[in-house]
């Protein structure tokens, strides 16, 4: 955090100054470690074992927050008799279909209740809930729904519960049995963390959790970029829920995101699987209409029961007067999914020439996405490519100077791809909002006009849409109706006829039938009388004023500071904050008070906006026929869940198990000590099988010894992602002038590597060179009786700009988390050798030689 979010880290230092204990768990010693009370280096790719060990400690030593767990989680729910976990199933959960490499989740359900998840794979239950065809094979089950974090669960029927938590099939007892194997000794074997150090972490964390104290977890892509990434976060969720650290000040699981509006581009998603506000994109089903979609994907209780209002208001925002009750509000205008259409499937489709046009908006996949070679080969097979960026990034120039040109694998004169480079406007040259990592929208104002041909992406997209509409005007082809009926007329201003970003924000916010701005998603209806482009952003222009542009200075506000910008939903700064009060509505403790029930005023009040119906008393019990938010009791804080409870065990929504289990990374030099099953059995590798995405032998397989080290990728303070916004800045280039790797003195001695000399790092995909930084900040760790050396690889580079070097992403394979299709670049086995790599052709031969030595074929590593 001190490296990559340094200004945010000032608050960690503030907390430390007030007595907080800071623990840093990371394979590397960084600026964060230097300021932490305790640094715990561990083997990259083993955090589920580490966190699972803490869960076991909390349960075995009864350190959980009993009242919070009993009242606010699903600990008391009883799970079906057919459920079996990996300890009893050789590393598999019940329901595994080896042929389809897929889990049937039905045995993970509660007893007596058919539960639907409203996050994760909601479409899996389509046949159960809407009738009709089963999900179409591997396609549907691979479609990601994982961005819908924190939302989930509809049930039909009433799940059996045991509030004493003693029933053997309660979630609580299942949890205890599941994590019983995650002992301190096992943590040492798997993670390489000595038991004394591990127990100090357990003690620090549990001493600082409970009524009087809270602890927060902070993570970034070090947790997400794994074949089990979602389950990393799940393990932290289980732990924080057991400790009562969710919905309370100083608690939470905080994702530190790495782009200015990566949160916003997930909320208003430029993502294949979502519509704005985490409404799922529809999958293809026979005779699907809006009602069938909502029956399948919406819920009975909680706020997802209102999905119809959110969806209908979105359809009205997009298709305006054309969307009528008679035509189902143009629901049929939405294109349908038939599986995963993630960026990695798209790259494979490009190589097969099944997708021939490509827009890049401020992203540099030629060096910034895993298996960079496949990214370039995909682009080389396109008909056309549009690159919108500040500078000539590698994704714009690969056709004349990419590694494949140097090696002769591709020839510029034979590449048919047409490339358009369009310069983009900077944040100082356009109005607009970013949503930061705490869900807060902040407006930035244009300071000057962009120069030359530079334009905002708002300008480009708006005028591209207008041009296409003009060219198709008068078309009678039914496929053009969604485009021609689209509301696509925004006011413009200034010398460049810039579309008015505030008018776009007004559409996102929504309006009533008279065109008045809405102030809350509670006002949305499913009868077509309201419009709203993104329901969770409803209220950002409450009263017709741009709330995201508010800038009341921080020192003139309380510590919540909610007069600066605007956080979704409803300007709440801490989600699920009803949980900061006990079941009776009183703060768990005075020092951790956030919101509470004011019995005189008969409403929730406090420092933050309560994430709860404002006048619903703590003793509210819903009538048996209640539906939606009204069906949640006054003691159910998790208002997006059908049962209003936090899920320690996820009976639906995840494709790789209701509980986290440790599996080894795709390419690992170690055997899985916890289960006979080596890797996540449903990880996504098969679509990427082939000569450009070779995997490595793992565990006890012959050939594993060819790649004895573990590499992990990361960012530096002085650069940004794949370098498009930092390698062209002389200041930053001077601070970090070229690609390097970080290794320990022990590894340097073992492999003859010298400080400031060169090293070549090799995997089954590629070999890259890097300057060597020998540092004691990289420490060898003892794992399973061996010494493991890890190799640190910053991934900012390519060969354009002022600061240059090989791209770490050349080395990484396409092996993905099956829930969210994120690639595993945070832990993969490699070799490292002294000296520079040969020229491009020689490098290709070097990689082939490694493949031969390790016995690698297209099949290697693709087994279950």
């Amino acid at each position: 955090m001190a490296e990559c979010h340094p200004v945010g880290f000032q608050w960690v230092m503030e907390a430390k100054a007030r007595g907080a204990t800071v623990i840093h768990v990371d394979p590397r010693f960084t600026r964060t470690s230097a300021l932490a009370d305790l640094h715990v280096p561990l083997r990259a790719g083993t955090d589920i074992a580490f966190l699972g060990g803490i869960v076991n400690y909390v349960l075995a030593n009864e350190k959980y927050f009993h009242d919070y767990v009993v009242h606010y989680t699903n600990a008391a729910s009883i799970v079906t008799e057919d459920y079996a976990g990996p300890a009893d199933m050789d590393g598999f959960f019940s329901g595994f279909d080896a042929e389809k490499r897929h889990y049937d989740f039905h045995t993970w359900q509660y007893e007596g209740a058919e539960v639907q998840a409203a996050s994760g794979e909601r479409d899996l239950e389509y046949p159960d809930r809407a009738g009709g065809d089963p999900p179409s094979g591997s396609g549907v089950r691979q479609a990601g729904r994982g961005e819908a974090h924190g939302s989930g669960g509809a049930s039909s029927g009433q799940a059996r519960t045991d509030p004493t938590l003693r029933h053997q099939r309660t979630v609580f007892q299942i949890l205890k049995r599941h994590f019983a194997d995650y002992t301190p000794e096992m943590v040492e074997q798997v993670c390489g963390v000595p038991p004394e150090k591990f127990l100090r972490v357990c003690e620090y964390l549990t001493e600082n959790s409970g009524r009087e104290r809270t602890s927060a977890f902070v993570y970034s892509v070090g947790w997400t970029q794994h074949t089990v990434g979602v389950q990393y976060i799940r393990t932290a969720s289980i732990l924080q829920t057991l400790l009562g650290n969710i919905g309370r000040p100083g608690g939470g699981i905080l994702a530190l995101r790495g782009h200015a509006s990566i949160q916003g581009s997930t909320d208003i998603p430029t993502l294949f699987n979502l519509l704005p506000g985490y409404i799922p994109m529809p999958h293809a089903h026979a005779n699907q209409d809006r009602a069938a979609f909502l029956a399948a994907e919406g819920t009975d209780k909680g706020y997802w029961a209102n999905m119809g209002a959110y969806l209908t208001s979105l359809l009205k925002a997009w298709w305006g007067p054309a969307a009528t009750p008679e035509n189902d509000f143009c629901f049929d205008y939405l294109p349908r999914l038939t599986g995963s259409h993630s960026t990695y499937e798209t790259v494979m489709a490009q190589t097969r020439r099944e997708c021939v046009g490509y827009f890049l908006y401020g992203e540099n996949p030629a060096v910034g996405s895993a298996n960079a070679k496949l990214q370039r080969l995909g682009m080389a097979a396109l008909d056309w490519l549009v690159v919108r960026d500040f500078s000539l990034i590698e994704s714009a120039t690969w056709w004349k100077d990419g590694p494949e040109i140097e090696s002769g694998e591709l020839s510029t004169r034979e590449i048919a791809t047409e490339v358009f480079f369009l310069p983009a406007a900077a944040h100082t040259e356009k109005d607009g909002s970013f949503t930061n990592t705490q869900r807060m929208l902040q407006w930035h104002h244009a300071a000057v006009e962009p120069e030359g041909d530079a334009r905002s992406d708002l300008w480009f997209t708006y005028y591209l849409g207008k041009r296409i509409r003009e060219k198709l005007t008068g078309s009678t082809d039914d496929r053009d109706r969604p485009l021609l009926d689209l509301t696509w007329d925004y006011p413009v201003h200034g010398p460049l006829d810039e579309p008015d970003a505030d008018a776009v924000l007004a559409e996102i916010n929504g309006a009533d039938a008279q065109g008045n701005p809405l102030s809350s998603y509670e006002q949305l209806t499913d009868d077509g009388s309201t419009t709203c482009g993104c329901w969770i952003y409803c209220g950002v222009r409450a009263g017709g004023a741009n709330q995201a542009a508010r800038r009341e200075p921080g020192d003139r506000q309380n510590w919540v500071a909610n007069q600066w910008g605007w956080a979704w939903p409803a300007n709440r700064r801490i989600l699920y904050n009803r949980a900061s009060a006990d079941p009776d509505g009183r703060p768990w403790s005075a020092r951790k008070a956030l919101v509470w029930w004011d019995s005189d005023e008969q409403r929730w009040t406090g420092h933050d906006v309560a994430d709860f119906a404002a006048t619903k008393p703590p003793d509210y019990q819903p009538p048996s026929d209640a539906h939606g938010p009204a069906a949640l009791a006054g003691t159910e804080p998790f208002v997006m869940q059908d049962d209003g409870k936090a899920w320690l065990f996820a009976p639906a929504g995840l494709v790789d198990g209701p509980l986290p289990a440790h599996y080894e990374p795709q390419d690992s030099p170690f055997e899985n000590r916890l289960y006979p099953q080596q890797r996540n059995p449903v990880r996504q590798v098969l679509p990427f099988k082939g000569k450009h995405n070779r995997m490595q032998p793992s565990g006890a397989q012959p050939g594993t010894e060819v790649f004895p080290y573990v590499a992990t990728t990361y960012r530096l303070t002085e650069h940004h992602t794949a370098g498009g916004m930092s390698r062209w800045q002389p200041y930053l280039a001077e601070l970090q002038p070229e690609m390097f790797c970080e290794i320990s003195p022990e590894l340097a001695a073992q492999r003859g590597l010298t400080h400031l000399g060169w090293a070549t790092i090799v995997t089954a995909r590629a070999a890259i060179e890097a300057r060597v930084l020998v540092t004691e900040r990289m420490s060898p760790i003892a794992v399973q009786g061996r010494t493991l050396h890890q190799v640190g690889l910053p991934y900012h580079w390519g060969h354009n700009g002022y600061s240059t070097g090989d791209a770490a992403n050349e080395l990484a394979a396409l092996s993905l988390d099956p829930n969210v299709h994120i690639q595993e670049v945070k832990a993969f086995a490699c070799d490292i050798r002294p000296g520079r790599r040969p020229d491009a052709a020689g490098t290709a031969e070097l990689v082939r030689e490694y493949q031969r030595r390790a016995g690698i074929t297209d099949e290697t590593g693709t087994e279950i």
Partner: protein
Amino acid sequence: MKRWLNWPVLRQFASTDPSGRGAAAKSRTSANLSPRTADADRIVKSVCPYCAVGCGQNVYVRGERVTHIEGDPDSPVSRGRLCPKGSASLQLTTGPGREHRVLYRRPYGTDWEQLDLDTALDMIADRVIKARGEYWQWQQDDVRTRRTMGFASLGGATLDNEENYLIKKLFTALGAVQIENQARV
């Protein structure tokens, strides 16, 4: 002699500023300097474009050019601070690394060519229509899909919410489903 007496080291030890951090370090030139922020025509409120912490920025403009960018002390997020990247955002926005012209590489071409922005927009519109039509799918396996697989889009995490909204809206209306951004990688 006068020049010698003006020698900074001599001034430093002869004055009340032996550590050389105040009056002794000043020259006539430096005394007449003023910060770039002092003569700005206006200060525009902004947000750092790098990571998602969302540090406040003050953008200083003089003569319709951005002359300086620094941290906004009012921000409860950042309290005026910026990291090395945020501090380099003047160079990001006004530096020599930026391209300001449309460039075009024709099929099998060996170098860039200049292209008029309006022509480029028109050519891209034609190509979208063509790819969309050629790879259109009304259905797959007898189930209605109403979509095109002909083109894809990648990126959005560095853009504004309003830009992402228009991209998703337009491309979805065109029938595209392969719309992705950095959140996936």
